[in-house]
């Protein structure tokens, strides 16, 4: 039976007149790599800040490990490692000294050798004594992950950990998250505004926009079982549209222009449509397909 690690219901948070989070609900099971997806400004960071009691929610229920964060703050936070927005450390201290300070208040005793081990684990060996101000963005992210892991937490919350990283840095962080999940059995919440990133790492996800939960479920189910949005480039879109209406009655054309026809259809039937067009002597210049959820998410980002 699945064990619920995080349960958020009806979360609301306003900053004066601006309602940053209107109604966010989701749940995370033990060992999930949970994608927390939404465009910039969707309310992801605000929701995560509420979960960690950095800010006080106006309404809603947040339960972590079955406990209310507000009444059992220290107990709950001792089981969590997190990076919210970006990892900020004392720039005038070394990487090791920064970790040592945070380890002292992490709720569990972390030895000197464990701190060195965790710095090795995130790939910062040899840079332990270097001042934080000399670190590149990627190294700062790695140190942020090190402080999130040093007290061996059960739940790791990473808020857009790959933002600003170079391609190799993104791959490294992604592999690190997978390693934590698969080898150490950690539960990970990963916030991102990139569907592709969540698809590569997460097993479950929630999409939020404008402070509201839109959809939650298994990444596989949400992305692969859904319909496709297909765009055909044809020599005669009027005739193509008529053929579609006659032969595929359940298909609705969403966009039509002089040479493009866009509609939603099950993946398995795209070949049938193409065959129908060819049999009726229509020239197909190109076929573009996007998953419905992907299309929906891209539109959401474009709308801002």
């Amino acid at each position, binding site marked *: 039976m699945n064990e619920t690690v995080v349960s958020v219901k009806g979360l609301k948070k306003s900053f004066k007149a601006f309602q940053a989070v209107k109604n966010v609900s989701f749940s995370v099971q033990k060992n999930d790599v949970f994608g927390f997806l939404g465009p910039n400004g969707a309310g992801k960071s605000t929701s995560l800040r509420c979960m960690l009691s950095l800010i006080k929610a106006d309404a809603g229920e947040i339960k972590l490990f079955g406990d209310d964060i507000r009444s059992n703050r220290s107990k709950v936070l001792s089981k969590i490692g997190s990076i919210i927005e970006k990892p900020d450390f004392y720039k005038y201290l070394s990487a090791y000294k920064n970790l040592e*300070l945070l380890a002292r208040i992490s709720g569990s005793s972390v030895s000197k050798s464990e701190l060195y081990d965790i710095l090795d684990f995130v790939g910062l060996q040899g840079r332990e004594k270097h001042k934080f101000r000399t670190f590149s963005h990627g190294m700062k992210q790695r140190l942020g992950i090190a402080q999130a892991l040093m007290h061996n937490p059960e739940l790791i919350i990473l808020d857009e950990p790959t933002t600003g990283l170079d391609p190799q840095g993104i791959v490294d962080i992604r592999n690190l998250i997978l390693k934590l999940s698969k080898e150490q059995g950690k539960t990970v919440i990963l916030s991102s505004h990139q569907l592709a990133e969540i698809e590569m790492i997460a097993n479950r996800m929630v999409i939020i926009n404008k402070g509201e939960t839109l959809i939650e479920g298994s990444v596989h189910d949400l992305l692969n079982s859904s319909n496709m949005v297909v765009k055909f480039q044809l020599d005669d879109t009027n005739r193509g549209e008529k053929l579609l209406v006659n032969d595929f009655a359940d298909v609705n054309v969403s966009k039509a222009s002089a040479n493009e026809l866009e509609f939603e259809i099950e993946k398995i039937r795209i070949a049938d449509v193409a065959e129908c067009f060819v049999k009726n002597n229509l020239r197909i210049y190109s076929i573009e397909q996007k998953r419905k959820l992907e299309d929906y998410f891209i539109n959401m980002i474009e709308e801002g």
Partner: protein
Amino acid sequence: MLLKNTWNELIKILAKPRSYIGFGALTLLIGVILVAMKADGQSFISFVTASFEQTLSFNGEILNGNLMAFVILQMLIIHVPLLVALVTGDLVSGEAAMGTLRMMATKPISRSAILGSKLLAGAIYTFLLTLWMAFMAYGVGQWMFGAGDLIVLNNDGLVIIPADDIMWRYFYGFGLAYLSLLAVATMSICFSVFSDNSIGPIVSTMAVIILFTIIGSLDVSSFNTLQPFLLTTHMSSWRSLFEMPVPIDSILNSIYILLFHIVGFAGISFWRFNKKDINT
């Protein structure tokens, strides 16, 4: 957790270059005063005692370490708050601006323990700064000028305190100076809790000190009711220890008012910090 984080706070204070500005400034200021007085102090003393020479005859060395400590403490007590606020005003807001407050607040340490440790570390820093001021003014003063009777000009006239009756007065005098600086430190930490940038609380603290000093020095009837309760009024209460007899009630009153300020500012800080949204 409170003590562990207080240790953390002290490490951070020690690692910040700005923490040494106060010690450097005190060393420079007091050093300059001591060297200048060593070079040309006699003419300064002659200028001060000239008005008494018709009625009094001065024997012995008036310009001694005890007088130097008195002069220095009187000159610096209004300026040292800036040096204190430079560090304490940054304790919360500086971390908010840097983003490290967010990192700390995601750890299993209560908000009260975070602030309590900052207040304790601020109090220790202020103590060390006061100790340094005492060492430079009294210790180095005694080494350079030697001991001797202290002649002080008060509102009631000239007071002569024998050399063997002075040390305890300085002990309590620097204690009172510490208490007033601690009130300033608590006030700047309180301002720091309300701010997310490090300059605001430092400037605000100095603005309040200047405003209170002006209100305290103006002989306006509407201000007269305020003056006994102002922090700045009691910052010079250490001077009462150099009166004969020592006005114990007046000193106790100053201690109560300074403690009231410390407790008040700390209380407001805890109230605000526990509800503060950490958005930076």
